[in-house]
Structures are given as C-alpha cells and as structure tokens.
C-alpha cells in the first residue's frame, strides 16, 4: 500500500510512524519542550475505536483476521490552517491529539519539528530496540559439534 507515495508523503509517514510508536510520556515531554504550541481546533475526535489486525496464513499467504486492537485518533486544524491527523494504538486520547497537532505543524515547519521531535524520538526508539536486540542476542545458541575421540 505504501509503494507509490511521494517523497513528501513518505517523510510524513515516517514522522507519523515514529510519533505513534513513541511512549506517551516521552512524546508529551518532547512536545512540552518544543515551546510553540499552536492553537488548534478539533475536526474529529479525539476518539477511541478498534482496528481489526490482520495476519496471513503461513506468514505470507491469504489474509485473515487475527483480532482487534484499541486505536485512538484525532484530526485537528491549527490556527495557521494546516490539518493534521493522529493515529496510535491504545486509548490515550491526548497522545492521538498531540500527534495530530504535530502532524499539522510539521507541514509548516518540517525542519524544526523533525529536528526537535521526530529525530530525537527515533533515536530513543533505536536505542531501546538495540538494547532489546542485544539482550536477546545473548540468548543465541551457538551450536558446536562434539569431536569424537580416536580411541
């Protein structure tokens, strides 16, 4: 689904992906530190609903419905007119609304938003992933074959 999107869309997607993955507390801190918080008007939500998560038979075959997940979303218009959308797993309405405002603001100030919010969040996520990866790697089995003695 994401194969034919423009570079601009792809950067917006990346930002939204990182925002959704961010722990709510960390995102709220980053956002509070950002300073400029544009006034905004709610277009839709914030609201919580369900998304049916799909898997694929055998991992890569026909899709099937695995089960639902709670999702919160919000759409806002900031005072300068840009419209932003926020989606994230869970029931945190504030988080969805902050994502929407950041998404809207990013359309006007991509450079600053990326530098002060998106990139730091991405770095935190990468560090957390690397830590988990290294912990899991320590449980990797190094198989060796016992050499049979000659006598």
């Amino acid at each position, binding site marked *: 689904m994401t194969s034919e999107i423009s570079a601009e869309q792809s950067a917006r997607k990346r930002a939204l992906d990182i925002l959704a993955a961010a722990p709510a507390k960390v995102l709220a801190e980053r956002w509070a530190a950002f300073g400029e918080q544009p006034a905004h008007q709610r277009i839709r939500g914030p609201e919580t609903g369900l998304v049916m998560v799909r898997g694929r038979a*055998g*991992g890569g075959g026909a899709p099937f419905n695995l089960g639902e997940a709670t999702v919160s979303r919000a759409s806002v218009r900031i005072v300068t007119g840009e419209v932003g959308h926020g989606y994230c*797993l869970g029931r945190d309405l504030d988080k969805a609304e902050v994502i929407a405002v950041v998404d809207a603001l990013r359309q006007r100030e991509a450079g600053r938003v990326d530098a002060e919010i998106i990139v730091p969040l991405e770095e935190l996520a990468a560090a957390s992933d690397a830590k988990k990866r290294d912990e899991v790697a320590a449980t990797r089995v190094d198989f060796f074959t016992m050499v049979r003695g000659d006598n």
Partner: protein
Amino acid sequence: MYVAVKGGEAAIANAHRLLADRRRGDRSVPALRLDQIVEQLGLAVDRAMGEGSLYDRELAALALVQARGDLIEAIFLVRAYRTTLPRFGYSEPIDTGAMKIERRISATFKDLPGGQMLGPTFDYTHRLLDPSIVGEDAEVPAVRGVEDEQAPRVTDLLGRQGLIEPDGELPEGHEVGDLTREPLDFPLNRDLRLQALARGDEGFLLALGYSTQRGYGRTHPFVGEIRIGEVEVEFDIPELGFAVSLGRVRVTECQMVNQFKGSAKIPPQFTRGYGLVFGQAERKAMAMSLVDRALRAKEFGEDITAPAQDEEFVISHSDNVQATGFVEHLKLPHYVDFQAELDLIRRMRAEFEGKREAAE
C-alpha cells in the same frame, strides 16, 4: 403457564457488594495496580488479550483484577468491552518476517540465518519453586553486542527449494471472512478457521493438538519455527491516502511442518499448520498450528476419523466465552422447566406402577 418470579434484587445487590469486598481481600494488603499486573503477570495478561481478541494490555490487566484472576471471566469482560467501541477498519496484514525478534527457535534446522534465540523462556528451567524471587529485584540481562540481522521465516527458506507447500492462498477476489460480523456457516474457509483458532480456548486447542500427536488424526508434526516479537500494525488512512504504522503489537507465530503429501499433479512436499496469537503465547500458537493442520484434512484428501479433524466440532466448541455461557446458564433459575419435567416423571411413574400392579 408462565410465572414471573421476583425477589432477588436485594440479594443480587448485596452479592455484588460482597464480591467487591472479597475481590479486594484483606485491606491491610496493598491493592494491586494495573501496571504491576501488566509488568509482572504478563502472560496471564497476554492470554486474556489473545482470547479476548482485543490487543490492549492495560484493559486485559483490568479485566484480570475485576475477574479476581479468573481467566475466562476476564476474557468475557474484554469481549464485552470491545462491543462498546466503533470499528475504524482493518489493518494491513502484519509482516511476521519483519518482526523485532524476542525469541526464535526451530526444531528442524540447527543453523538458521538470523540464529536461534531462546529469549525469555521457561524451557530448560528446573520447575522448582523459588521463594527467593518474591519481593526481590532480578539481575539485569546479559547482553551481546550484535548488528541488526535479517531472520527470514524458516518456511520461506524451505519453500525456495519447493520441498514445502506455499503459505496458503485463497482464490483471487476472496473477501476475508470476519466471524465478529457474520455468523459462521460451515464449511469454513481457512481464514475464518484461523480467526476462530486465534481467539479459541488454549486448553481446548492444547487437548486437541495433543490428541493428534497421540494418533487421533496423526499429522507427524515438527516445529519448523516459533518466533515471538513485535510487529508493526499498518493502517490505511483515507484522509492521507497512504498507510501509517499505529505502533507495534507483540505476537507469537508457530510454523508447524507436517508429513508430506503428493498427488499426480503435485510432487511430494511437506504440508503445514499455522499458529498466530497476540502476545507471548507459545503453547497456544503451537496448539493452534497442530489443529489448523488437522482441520485441513479434507484439503489433502485425508480420512476424517478424529475429533481434531472435524471442523464443525472444533470451531463450534473452541470459544470459551460461548462455552461458558451455555454451561453456566444451567445454574440460572429453571423452575418452570423443571416443574414441567417433574410433572412428566410423576405421570410416567404412575403409569409404570399401574402396569406393574396390573401384571401382578
């Protein structure tokens, strides 16, 4: 004659009040917080979430506390909660090949690209109760600095050589079935079966899977791969015109590789069963993959001789919320039904006595 019986209101209200008291227990013991349950009873949370068919760890933790730890009651609460929320839509299918792996093992291949990682497993523990863990901080995990490495699904590796059947496609244009939207109509397609199994009762599926191993619908299984970890959930946003990630969910996937099958047209190849479950739920994913394979008997022209191969039997009884509803309704007042039965048996007894006297 229908007789309405009233009079239980005060008893019910007081029973619920007593339940709340007993749930809380001794007030001198600190009350549980949800984050304690999420963090320290994670696999119970995962089970409530998986069989409740709703990914939300905090809600599942709340359900567990409210249910006093009764898993089926907790699952029931989670299922009831989901009916209160609107459905935004369907996600893109998750890509388990791109999983952030926390555990990955194979019983069929020793050397795998990406390696075998035991992860946080109960395997190889001594199953000795350890009082020292109570109230103690755990040691920090060991680390081994590595680079990110691809870990393709084992079945993809074997698949490239054509020795194993493909992942399992359904005909072009097939609309994905959803048992939360339409009632089940047997026979089912595999997509609906997988949905039902993914939310099915672990104990029931475990017993059925075990039965196939003991000879009731034997399928000669090997664990091709089990992997546990987080995957992105991508959701198409109409307002944006592209899909974004909503975040990650943890899932457990089991690829069971089974006895081969060939025909005039298809050379002999391994067949497969598939298990995919929310959270860390290895036993459930394994049981699901065994039952999935057993339920494909008809597809492979196998004789249907065992319970695990009987689709209608398995799927109609795999849901523990339905099962508990029907079993537990037996304790609700059946006074009028029972009165009718009582009248009937009295009449039958009178007839029986009458006949016996006549014969004497």
